[in-house]
């Protein structure tokens, strides 16, 4: 029976990766937020399943935190932000999307390679998911690099957090509760600070384009 749950978690892992790629290729901010929400939902489901399989009750709590924070609260904040800032479209990426995708594939191969020896050591049912988590982190990183607007960058940042969280829950069956709470708090506070930032940046630059933020550099 356990192996079925393992397979479901693997399926969710694949879904997470698919969503990461979808985010990488997405041009619209609204869809990006929805994808982020879907990623949160996948994360929540996988955490709950891991909790069920291993009988570790504290993981139910982290699933709940994920649900509240990443599926409900953060997307709501983001939706509110883009409504208030009145930005719905984001057509620009710094590198065109097919190239980004190709780099993404290379990153996936890289992280799978890196994770293979480790996966063989893990005692958990879901040992192989570590590579996927690493790939998700790197893809989110790539997304941050290739976007020139502030909001997609932040979504990339949050998506990176998702990948890390997935690594924590699925590969190691969850970090201690204190740590998870701390991480959640940091993410939330960071998000609020960034929200304030958006308004200030826009007030100063009349735009949320990060390319305006290029005055500070070495000559």
């Amino acid at each position, binding site marked *: 029976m356990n192996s079925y749950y393992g397979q479901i978690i693997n399926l969710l892992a694949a879904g997470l990766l698919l969503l990461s790629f979808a985010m990488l290729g997405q041009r619209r901010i609204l869809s990006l937020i929805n994808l982020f929400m879907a990623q949160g939902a996948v994360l929540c489901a996988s955490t709950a399943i891991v909790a069920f399989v291993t009988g570790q009750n504290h993981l139910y709590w982290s699933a709940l935190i994920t649900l509240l924070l990443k599926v409900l609260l953060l997307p709501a904040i983001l939706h509110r932000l883009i409504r208030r800032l009145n930005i719905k479209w984001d057509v620009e990426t710094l590198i065109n999307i097919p190239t980004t995708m190709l780099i993404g594939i290379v990153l996936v191969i890289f992280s799978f390679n890196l994770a293979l020896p480790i996966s063989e050591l893990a005692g958990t049912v879901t040992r192989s998911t570590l590579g996927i988590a690493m790939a998700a982190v790197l893809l989110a990183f790539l997304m941050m690099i290739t976007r020139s607007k502030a909001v997609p960058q932040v979504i990339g940042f949050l998506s990176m957090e998702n990948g890390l969280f997935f*690594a924590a829950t699925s590969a190691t069956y969850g970090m201690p509760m204190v740590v998870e709470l701390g991480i959640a708090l940091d993410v939330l506070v960071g998000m609020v600070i960034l929200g304030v930032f958006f308004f200030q*940046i826009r007030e100063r630059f009349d735009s949320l384009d990060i390319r305006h*933020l290029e005055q500070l550099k070495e000559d």
Partner: protein
Amino acid sequence: MEFFLVLGIPLLGGIVLALIGHTRRAAEYNALFSLLTLIAAINLTVHIVNHGPQLLFQDQFFLDPLNVFLVALTALVGFTTSLFSRPYMRIEHHHGRLTVGRLRLYHSMFQMFMFTMLLALTTNNMGILWVAMEAATLTTVLLVSLYRTTASLEAAWKYFILCGVGIAQALFGTILLYFAAEKVLGHEGGALLWTHLNAVKGTLEPTVMSLAFVFLLVGYGTKVGLVPLHNWLPDAHAEGPTPVSAVLSGLLLNVALYAVVRCKVLADGALHSNLAGVLMMGFGLLSVVVAAFFLSRQKDIKRMFAYSSIEHMGIVTFAFGMGGPLASFGGLLHMTVHSLTKSAIFFAVGHATQKSGTQLMEQIRGLIKISPTVGWGLMLGTLAILGMPPFGVFASEFLILTTAMKQQPWATPFLLMALGVAFASIFGKVQPMVFGESTLPKLPHKPAMLPVFVHLALVLMLGLWIPPYLAEWYRQAAKFIG
């Protein structure tokens, strides 16, 4: 009890100042809280020196010679910075660069920043260490963006994104660490506690640990400002208020490096190879060399000293990477003297820029005429940071260099060359700023030069004579790092 005061006072200070930080006496309250923290820290240090390492609160906190010395240093620099910031922030307010509300934010965040750093230093839990480091990033982001100018917003944004990404790598490293540890220690709590990990470090899986260390080094290394992850550092130093630059350089970099060192101890135990040391030496040396060459191209005085911080952090990282009692001793000493000297320099620079109304070095001239104390403070601080005897930086750099000649002879020419380049660039730029002609008026508030000279006096003392108990303490810590 001694311990909880150290954490409790800045936390309380952060909350209280969030409420009353806008009042006229807020700066004094800020200094008062910092003073109380310092007293608590000294008390704690004496306690640890007398009673040896301690585990507290279900092993969640751990105090040993390594971190208690950093706690004391952090509290000291925090206190002197709060003294310096009192007139400095008043003048900024007077110049209209800050509103009262921003001052409240500043005071509150200053205390919160102290709290997060002290938490990062004292926690035994590698996960909490990460949380505290991230929280320190968040508070300093708010501090860097305090002026709300385009440049400061840009610097803060860069700082947030780069350090956020960096620290996310550190989280991944922490997860890998836990992954390696839970097989040995089991799920029940203890697998992230450093002391528990240290006890079983020989049995941790080497493949996982090497990967974990790489991620941790890259993650916390971003906060140390190691090249090539250093891009945020000059911007954040240059655009934030000067007291913030002082604590960033003097304290935050140390705390981040402390995190790296803790991880290195574990990695060394698990790997039976010198991978961790080699990586740290590589990053360290690269930082020293690159920073030294960037120094000569700087026009902004705070940026220049920010690069100097990168250089010195590179030296310390290199020293810890070499390992061995002598190098680690040198590294710890260099950490101490650098943080004292660099914060003193930033204090002096803060007043110098306020007097001249600019951070561009070409336009700062004749400081010694406008205010002899500021001029001499900057000059002496510069001499000290450049490693002139008899200051402490000379002693520590000498120690590190001689050890390098013995253990890693290939690295010495690079180090010597970088130090030479740094000397030429910094001295060549500071000299005309201090001497030379100027017709600038006086400032509305008297500058606080006491912290500068206290720091420099301490550095001078460390150069001439290290008190025996301090030396013993360094030796213990160095043995610990290995």
